[in-house]
Each structure stands twice: as structure tokens, then as C-alpha cells.
């Protein structure tokens, strides 16, 4: 079943698929980052695939390995009742990938979440603001080099002093 989808993508976009991973019955297509929108449009619109529903977009940080980041798209086809995961791998230096909001508008908040917490930019996103963290927050907390530590409370009188030694994951 998954083979037909892989063949479809490979025949229409020969260079797009970098790898196919089968694990625990789940299929993951590793897609070249520049092709992600083309692959998504193909998979959504082709009658043999018809992945009309985007469940989720999430990102994982493989620090210190390179390419450091992976963005995962969980696709679902209501017609064929099957799931597929697309994955793009992005390098650690200013990671960015095209937004799929024009394919599935529901990707909007998921991509904002990934940008906010993992610091991956989605080019062409209509409204790429932070979603959870405060607007003036520095760094991206879900990166593996962002510390999970006790944070000293900053008050007006000692704000600058603590700010200097605060262990942020700087951009």
C-alpha cells in the first residue's frame, strides 16, 4: 500500500525523495527541503494518494548530529484511511523550509509552534509570530542545547544583572 505512494512521488518528482524509512509499520518519506510544497500538493491532489488532512507538524532536534533538525508532517487520507509521515532534514545554521500553509491552512499554528519552540523558519508563512513564548523571549526552548534549568526570577532591580549570565540558546 505504501509502495504505490512512494512510486507515485518518485515518478512525478524524481529527485524529491531522499530516503524511505519503514519502522513499526509506519512509512516515512524523507523529502528534499526545496521540494516539500511540491510533494505536499502532489500527495493532497493526486487521486491515488489524496492525503487531504494534515494532522500535525512537529520538529525534532538531533543535536549534535548534522543535519541537525527534522521537521515531520503527519499526513492522513480520509478516503484511503492511511497515514504517511513526511520528513525534511535541515542544517543547524539558520534552518528554514517553505511553509505548507497554502496547501493546508491548518498548518498555520503548527508551524508557528515549531518556529517558536525550535527556531525553524517557514518561508512564505502568512503570520510567523511566536505563539507560546513571550514576544521578547530570546532563543528557542525546545532545542537540545537550550537548558532545562531553574530560572532565576528577574525583578526590576536585578533584571540586567541576571540577564547577563542567563544561559539562553542564542539564535
Amino acid at each position, binding site marked *: 500500500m505504501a509502495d504505490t505512494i512512494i512510486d507515485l512521488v518518485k515518478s512525478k518528482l524524481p529527485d524529491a525523495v531522499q530516503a524511505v524509512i519503514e*519502522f*513499526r509499520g*509506519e512509512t*516515512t518519506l524523507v523529502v528534499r527541503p526545496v521540494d516539500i510544497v511540491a510533494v505536499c500538493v502532489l500527495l493532497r491532489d493526486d487521486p491515488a494518494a489524496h492525503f*487531504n*488532512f*494534515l*494532522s*500535525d507538524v*512537529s*520538529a*525534532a*532536534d*538531533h543535536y549534535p548530529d548534522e543535519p541537525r533538525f527534522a521537521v*515531520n508532517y*503527519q499526513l492522513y487520507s*480520509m478516503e484511503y*484511511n492511511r*497515514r504517511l*509521515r513526511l520528513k525534511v532534514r535541515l542544517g543547524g545554521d539558520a534552518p528554514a523550509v517553505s511553509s505548507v500553509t497554502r496547501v*493546508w*491552512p*491548518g*498548518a*498555520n*499554528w*503548527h508551524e508557528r*509552534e515549531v518556529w517558536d*519552540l525550535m527556531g525553524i523558519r517557514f518561508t512564505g508563512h502568512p*503570520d510567523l509570530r*511566536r*505563539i*507560546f*513564548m*513571550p514576544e521578547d523571549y530570546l532563543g528557542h*526552548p*525546545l532545542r*537540545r542545547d*537550550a537548558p*532545562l534549568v531553574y530560572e532565576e526570577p528577574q525583578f526590576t532591580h536585578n533584571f540586567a544583572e541576571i540577564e547577563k549570565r542567563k544561559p539562553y540558546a542564542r539564535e
Partner: protein
Amino acid sequence: MPENEYQLMELTVDDLKEMKGLVSQRALDGDTVLLNMGPQHPSTHGVLRLLLELDGELVISCIPDVGYLHTGIEKSIEDKTYTKAIPLTDRMDYLSPMSNNLGYVMAVEKLMEVDVPLRAQYVRVILCELQRISSHLVWLGTHAIDLAAMSVFLYCFREREKILDIFEMVAGQRMMVSYFRIGGLWRDLPAGFEDAVRAFLGHFPSEVDEYEGLLKNNPLWINRTQGVGVVTAEDAIAWGMTGPSLRGSGVNWDIRKAQPYSAYDHFEFDVPISEAGDVYARFWCRVQEMRQSVRIVEQALAKLPKGPFITGNRKVAPPPKEELAYSMESLIHHFKLWTEGFTPPPGEVYVSVESPRGEFGCYVNSDGSPKPRRVHFRAPSFANLSALPLMTKGVFIADLVAIIGSIDIVLGDVDR
């Protein structure tokens, strides 16, 4: 304290320049009113802030602002063993901790290839369906009180209390249960559980009739809900809406039916669908779902198998306490599990369950160490709430309250 620190800042139109792109040019020119609704507002069901652009009483645009309850649960889990992350999942969607537990433990079970005993699967179904009822009761009560139907709220919370009593009996906790464990359950069902559930099921259907009777044909309720906040099926799918919010738009998709998990395929039940896509349709779907949940629980109780409540695989499930006294092997397993934890092979899985709010997905990425590299939760409230601006275009500000109530968000689930 210096005097000037407490002076009110006077906001001018110039200060709004950074809002460009978010609100229309009319707001920047001062033709329309920008109003903050929340985060401390009883009808936003938690700490949700909405920035509203209003033309008189009409909502021109609505910009949700979330994150007030962000507690970094996904980050915290990266620093815990797989077993110790379970209590954190309770605290996301605090109205349905059972479903959160289930999604997470199923993902880890898939990663570890653990078989769950049938009895545990049945108990999971029973508790998740009771959880669905209790979550829908909170939703119905608060939704009704938003629209000024006070008494429904009290009746709903009265019944929910009985379900929480059952949870307390089972797990020792009323809300933060953490009852599902990797490979099964924390412990077997206590004596008296089946009687308590049967007693609840005995009178609950008539209670649903009562709630429905109070609202279904009530002209006030109908005027406030029918034709309000309409979402078409195409929009609902495109925006990633799930659960009763999707089925209220006429899309027949329920993960319990489409991809049955945890023995759901052993039971007969219907998935209520409504075509209208408005607030009333979502209300109707949830109320009917409570009846279907009763059906599932009745069947599961009648067929509840005997047997172990947790897997015998000692690599993921701790041995019984009494074995530690005479079995060296068990002692080692116990020690390894509570200190180091277990190590799944490197890989990633995505498992989703039908929570009361929709698709609750759990993505677990293992790097082969005892702690996950990444755990991500696909929160149903998060996706449903992202469609709110679409639903609220051009509605009256009073209808906004009805629409927020109808998508049944839990802000702990949105923000995680």
C-alpha cells in the same frame, strides 16, 4: 515607588503600527475598535486572550493569543524516562487525562512492541469512555452557562462528580489519574468497581434526556446556536479540525472507527454526525456521543475478560512487589526499571487516539537511550482553536461566546 510608574499609558493610533498585517487598515485609522477579550474572562474557558476588531457589535477579525498556560511539558519529558513522563500527560488536557495517558502509553508500547493484555485494553476503553462523558459534561455545563442556562451547569457537574468518584476508586485520584502504564494498568480494578459503574450507567441515560430536554427544543437555545459559527466540511478538514467539531460539519471521521485501537473494534456503537456545521450541530453531536459512550461501557463491562492487567514483559512492566522478596531476577528488573528505565530502539512513531476533543496524537522519537529525544503531542484543542478566526468572521460579539464554547477547548491542551 516612583509616582510615574503607575500612570496609565495613553495609547495613540501611532502605537498600533506594529499591529499592521494583523488587523485591517480601518483599525489603524481608528475607524474600528480593538478590544481585548481575556485572558481573564469566564467565557474563554481558561486563559485565552482574543484580540477583537469590532465594528459596532460585529467582529471584523479575531486574533487568538495563546501560551498563558505553556508549561514546557514536551521539554520536561525529554529529561525523564518513558515511564516517568506519564503523569505529565495528565496535565495537558486536564479534562481528559485518561485519553492523554492512553495516547502516550500506546505510542511507547508501539515503540517497544509490547502486547497489552485484553483485560487492560477493555478497562482502558471503559475508563476512556467514562472520561469522554465527564469531559462532555463539563463542556455542556460551561457552554450552557455561557449562554445563560444556569441550571444545566449544576446538573452536569452533579453527574460528573459520580464519574470522578469512580476514577478516585480506580486510581486514587479524581483528575490527575496516571492510571494507564506502559504495557497495561497501574493495578487491577478494585472490588466494587463494576457495581459503581453499573449504578452510574443505570440512571445516566435518563439524565442525558433531561439535559437534552432542557436545551434541544428551547427557543432561546436554538436562537443562540442555530446558524451561528458555521464551518463547511472542506474548511473543517483543511484547518485540521477533529472530533465532534469536525463531525458537526458532516464529516464521518472518528479514529475509534477508522483505525480502531485498544479493542474498540470489539464493540458496537454509532458515530453521531450532523450536517449543519453550526454551534447547534456540535452541541447535538456531543450529546449523542454521551449516549454512545454509555453503550460502549455497557458492552465492555458485560464482556470484561479475566486475566492479567499488565504485560508480563519485565523489560517495560515492573514485577509484582511480592516477587522481590524471593526472585533475584525480579529485583534486578525492578531496580533497572526505576533507575535507568528501558531503552527502545532508535526510531519514531506517531499514534493517535480519539480524545473527547478530537485527534490526540503522540509523536515519540527515540534515540536509543532511556529518555526520549523528542515527544510531541498533537493537541486537538490547538488545531480546533486555530480555526476560530475563520468561524468568527462577521458574527456578533455575543455569538463569539457561543462559538468558543462549541469547539470545546481546554487551554492546558492548547498550550501544553
